């Protein structure tokens, strides 16, 4: 009992603290002959496959979707209480702890390896090296980056394992290495690709083949374009690489019961992770129970730590004891994927009125220890190029991906964004200045907007990737104008002094803008759509895969959502539960339960990736829920002898609209059906999915530079997103706060490499040399959500969690330039560069 019964119970109403929501009208005419017109059917796109508007669920009279709500208690509360089941927190009786021995050189082969001392040490159970690694998943003597795996030691305690790891004697033959982009590009670089050269090139049959580049796309006649230009400028930018820093140390636990393996992993999927593990171990997938309910962030990057999983499982099998691995941060860094180092050159020609008429873009990327085209793959390259070239008549974009002795490039809190847009957003600012235009107006002149079409010849392969009509694709639900205009209002752009360093005094303030476009606005298809059959008729691959969900009504009337995907603080189940609640006519989310993160409990699904969960796993969830809704209505109609069209569904009660006394409940219907009613749904993502529903965002930044010392502060950030209808704006707001902070970090820190001994790190001292922003450093933030309803999807929602993230580093750089006249073309942004630039006279030129 309460000590003070008079004291009123405080109820905290969840509300948005710092978010501006710009609602757009439900009916919009994009003047493209399509888009989103009154009536039930969309007119744009391929008529044969297009679905009904809103999928039958319009964003009207909403009770749950669109309301600010805290994360689902059953997902969030264990996190707050420190009881969530992270792999790194799993402790089992008789468990061994594994520690890694890693390669100290950028490139080497193992000359000799002696584990005898370590094996004799007390408490040591097993040492795994290239000599005894499983044949299905070997370890090699060739080591291609610092931190590459040499051996794993398992012992009774972490300390004993660490001591034993120290006692392993390894002799290395060091080999010539190309750790940096400069080294990998150099003509006398060691050849890392057996005589093929470090630059990865496509097969000559590929339409984007070029003997001197990995991927080339072009449009128009660039030479002709430059001849017509009034102003021609050339720019070079460098991005020094960046890493995301998952809070949870990468780790896993393996435990065998006979021939059945239970594995607690870390990553962004259950079934694809299980499949890779089964393949590596040479066993059937069904022999593995894969559990991954919680991750302390993954950022895509931590997926790569799955490299260790088969070894852990092997040691557990051989020793007959559970084994746990928890990588220290310095070892983890070698295995999580990073934003790669890159060098970008632009040549840009514009008319006096500001229109760009010719542009060449050339980017060189260190891809790390992998053969893949990586960032230079066509689809990705196109995504990064399209924002400012869709209206440029003549352009050429060439991408060069080099194999190197660096950490693997890959997903790292968005793929290909900050690292590629660093140069684009700096360039656009510099070009705006060259033509004498305001950076916002210059962007508005070039970005696509609703109504902009892309023709087949804009990209040769366009028709293959999108639902196109005669090879033409329209931008429709695309808030490119609004993110700029609303953001400008929110930051007070009219108070910006357009003269760089033009404000008086020691402490100079400045504002900058950056923009970003990314694929997550794309969505998949669910199994209620014709195109789903078309896509799934071919094999599904590429890590995107098929998504399945199951929704069940139990005899108690509660709804269980079975949805495999792990949670990484993403709170996607919170959003998906809101969609389920809304579709089933609940006015709260309280009746929805979620079962997730376990291959024994939730049906097969793909990998959550690129911020597309709401429309990929969401496709499966919404499809299943839609089927369940229809099923419930049919059953109620039969039971009540009322026509389906005259039934209403509210909070678990189905009643006649004409005679509310004619009613039944979900619980009764479930009881009548042997205790449960369930439906499954599926979703799929193939390539980029339908139409140009790309996400678009912008970031506005205000900084203050101390021109005496080079110190600077990030004062304010206005972060604008084309959100569609945000399913849960409260969680979205929090997610976007994190997004801005992480992208800020990526602007101010490079990969923590030693400048003088590249390829080696000084990361072992924790975060001494890698400075993640703290609460003292983060700016005051305003989020701007542009509710540009997506007509093709349930309730007008779309994915947007990564659309704006690429805009931040360039926006900060542009703001610093505006404040003090120092243009930082070589990432990262540091105080040293600012003070050095100020000493050189403030323009940085």
């Amino acid at each position: 009992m309460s000590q003070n019964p008079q004291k009123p119970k405080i109820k905290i109403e969840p509300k948005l603290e710092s978010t501006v929501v710009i609602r757009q009208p439900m009916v919009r005419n994009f003047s493209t002959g399509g888009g989103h017109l009154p009536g039930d059917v969309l007119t744009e796109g391929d008529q044969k496959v297009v679905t009904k508007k809103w999928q039958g669920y319009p964003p009207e009279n909403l009770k749950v979707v669109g309301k600010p709500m805290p994360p689902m208690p059953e997902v969030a509360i264990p996190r707050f209480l420190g009881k969530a089941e992270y792999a790194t927190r799993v402790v089992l009786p008789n468990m061994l702890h594994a520690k890694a021995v890693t390669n100290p050189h950028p490139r080497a082969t193992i000359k000799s390896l002696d584990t005898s001392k370590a094996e004799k040490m007390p408490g040591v159970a097993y040492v795994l090296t290239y000599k005894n690694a499983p044949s299905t998943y070997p370890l090699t003597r060739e080591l291609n980056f610092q931190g590459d795996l040499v051996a794993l030691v398992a012992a009774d305690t972490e300390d004993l394992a660490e001591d034993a790891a120290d006692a392993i004697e390894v002799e290395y033959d060091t080999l010539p290495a190309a750790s940096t982009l400069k080294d990998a590009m150099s003509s006398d670089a060691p050849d890392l690709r057996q005589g093929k050269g470090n630059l990865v090139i496509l097969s000559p049959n590929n339409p984007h083949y070029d003997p001197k580049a990995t991927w080339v796309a072009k449009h128009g006649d660039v030479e002709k374009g430059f001849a017509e230009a009034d102003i021609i400028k050339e720019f070079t930018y460098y991005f020094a690489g960046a890493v995301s820093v998952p809070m949870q140390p990468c780790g896993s636990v393996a435990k065998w019961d006979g021939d059945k393996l239970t594995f607690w992993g870390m990553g962004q999927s259950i079934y694809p992770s299980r499949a890779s593990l089964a393949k590596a171990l040479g066993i059937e997938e069904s022999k593995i129970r894969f559990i991954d309910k919680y991750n302390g962030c993954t950022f895509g990057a931590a997926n790569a730590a799955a490299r260790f999983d088969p070894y852990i499982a092997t040691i557990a099998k051989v020793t007959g004891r559970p084994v746990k691995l928890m990588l220290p941060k310095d070892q983890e860094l070698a295995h999580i994927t990073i934003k790669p180092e890159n060098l970008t050159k632009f040549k840009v020609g514009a008319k006096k009125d500001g229109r760009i008429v010719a542009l060449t873009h050339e980017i060189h990327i260190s891809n790390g220890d992998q053969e893949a085209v990586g960032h230079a793959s066509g689809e990705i390259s196109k995504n990064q190029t399209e924002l400012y070239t869709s209206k440029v008549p003549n352009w050429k974009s060439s991408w060069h991906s080099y194999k190197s002795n660096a950490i693997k490039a890959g997903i790292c809190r968005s793929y290909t964004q900050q690292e590629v847009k660093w140069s684009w957003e700096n360039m656009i600012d510099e070009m705006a200045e060259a033509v004498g235009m305001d950076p916002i107006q210059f962007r508005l002149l070039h970005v696509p907007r609703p109504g902009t079409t892309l023709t087949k010849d804009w990209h040769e392969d366009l028709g293959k990737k999108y639902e196109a009509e005669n090879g033409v694709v329209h931008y429709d639900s695309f808030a490119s104008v609004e993110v700029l205009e609303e953001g400008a209002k929110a930051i007070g752009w009219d108070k910006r002094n357009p003269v760089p360093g033009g404000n008086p005094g020691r402490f100079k303030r400045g504002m900058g803008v950056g923009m970003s476009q990314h694929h997550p606005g794309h969505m998949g298809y669910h199994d209620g759509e014709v195109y789903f059959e078309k896509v799934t008729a071919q094999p599904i691959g590429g890590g995107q895969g098929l998504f399945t969900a199951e929704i069940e009504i139990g005899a108690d009337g509660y709804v269980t959502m079975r949805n495999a995907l792990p949670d990484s603080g993403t709170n996607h189940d919170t959003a998906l539960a809101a969609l389920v609640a809304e579709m089933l006519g609940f006015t709260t989310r309280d009746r929805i339960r979620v079962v997730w993160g376990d291959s024994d409990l939730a049906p097969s699904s793909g990998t959550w990736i690129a911020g597309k969960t709401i429309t990929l796993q969401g496709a499966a969830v919404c499809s299943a829920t839609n089927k369940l809704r229809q099923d419930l209505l049919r059953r109620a109609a039969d039971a009540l002898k009322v026509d389906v069209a005259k039934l209403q569904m509210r909070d678990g009660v189905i009643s006649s609209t004409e005679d509310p006394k004619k009613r039944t409940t979900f619980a009764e219907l479930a009881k009548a059906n042997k205790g449960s009613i369930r439906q499954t749904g599926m979703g799929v993502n193939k390539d980029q999915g339908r139409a140009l529903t790309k996400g678009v965002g912008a970031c506005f930044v205000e900084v203050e530079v101390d021109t005496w010392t080079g110190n600077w502060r990030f004062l304010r950030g206005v972060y604008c997103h084309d959100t569609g209808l945000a399913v849960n704006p409260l969680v979205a707001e929090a997610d976007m706060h994190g997004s801005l902070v992480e992208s800020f970090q990526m602007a101010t820190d490079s990969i923590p490499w030693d400048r003088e001994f590249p390829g080696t790190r000084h990361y072992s001292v924790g975060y001494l040399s890698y400075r993640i922003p703290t609460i003292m450093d983060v700016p005051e933030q305003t989020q701007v959500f542009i509710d540009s309803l997506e007509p093709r999807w349930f309730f007008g929602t779309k994915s947007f969690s990564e659309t704006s993230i690429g805009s931040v580093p360039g926006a900060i750089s542009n703001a610093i330039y505006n404040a003090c006249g120092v243009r930082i073309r070589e990432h990262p942004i540091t105080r040293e560069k600012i003070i050095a630039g100020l000493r050189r006279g403030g323009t940085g030129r």
Partner: protein
Amino acid sequence: MKKISVYRPTSIEEAIQILSLHGTDAGVYAGGTDLLIRLKNRLKQAPTFLVDIKKIGNLRYIKETPQGGVQIGALTKLAEIAESDVLAKKYPMLVQAFKMISSPELRNASTLGGDLLQEVWCQYLRGAYSCWRNGGYICYGAIGDNSYYHSAMGGRLCYAVYPGDAAPALITLDATVKIAGPSGIKEMSVEQLVPGDMMVDGRIQSHVVRFNEILTEVVIPPPNAGFRASFEKLRPRGVWDFAMASAALGLQLRDRTIEDARVVFGGIAGKPYRERAVEAFLKEKTLSADLANQALAAALANAAPLKYNATKIDMAKGLLASGLDKLAAS
């Protein structure tokens, strides 16, 4: 981690006996925020026998002296100094400087003695490289990435900067320390305590405290009327980080005339770098808004930056200007 033994003596005498017994294999364990990290990172130089002095009762205090100065026990937490009303009243600059040391969490654990005598934070030493301070014969900072943790004012063997903020602030206040050893108590100025990389008992350290001695107390003389001081620190983030450069400034004023000055830079040299050229320049000058520019001309003429750290000098000069500007405006 190496096997360690921990002693918990209850008196200074007992602690000194244990330290004497184990020689340089022993080390004083106070807050642990430096020592335990060296152990965790497997530095060869980290001691095996830890002499935990936290059970010694009479080393944690802030006391006013009858003359109006202050004595601070070596085990006093940095947070206690940062939050002390007595110190805030008498030496506001000191409190301001301590509030900029590391983070609130670490200030709650770290001690004054530990801050003064802390090991350098060079990334090579802390990464367990075999350097001068860790059993080797090379300074990786001299030949490596020396942008942050290394001296721009030259060096001898170890080029790491003296990392602390307490020492530059205390030198500006003419503070002294007491050191207990087998033969009694020694006294010296804080400036003499941390002369930079010195070979002491066969190892390189930034301070002159021997293996069998314990720093017990810091004494700050009474503040004079007309004394004004400032502390400026530049770091990449608003918390945690060591100074890229710092400047502690003390001016003894008679009206607006500077009778005496202390100018001590941190984060740029192997020791708190007292810039006597600027001190001499400032003497008898009138404190005014344009004094900063003139003072800068005299500052850090002996700079000897390494490959990557020339901007430390620009930053340090900027901080000096900033400090003078604030004092002129006050």
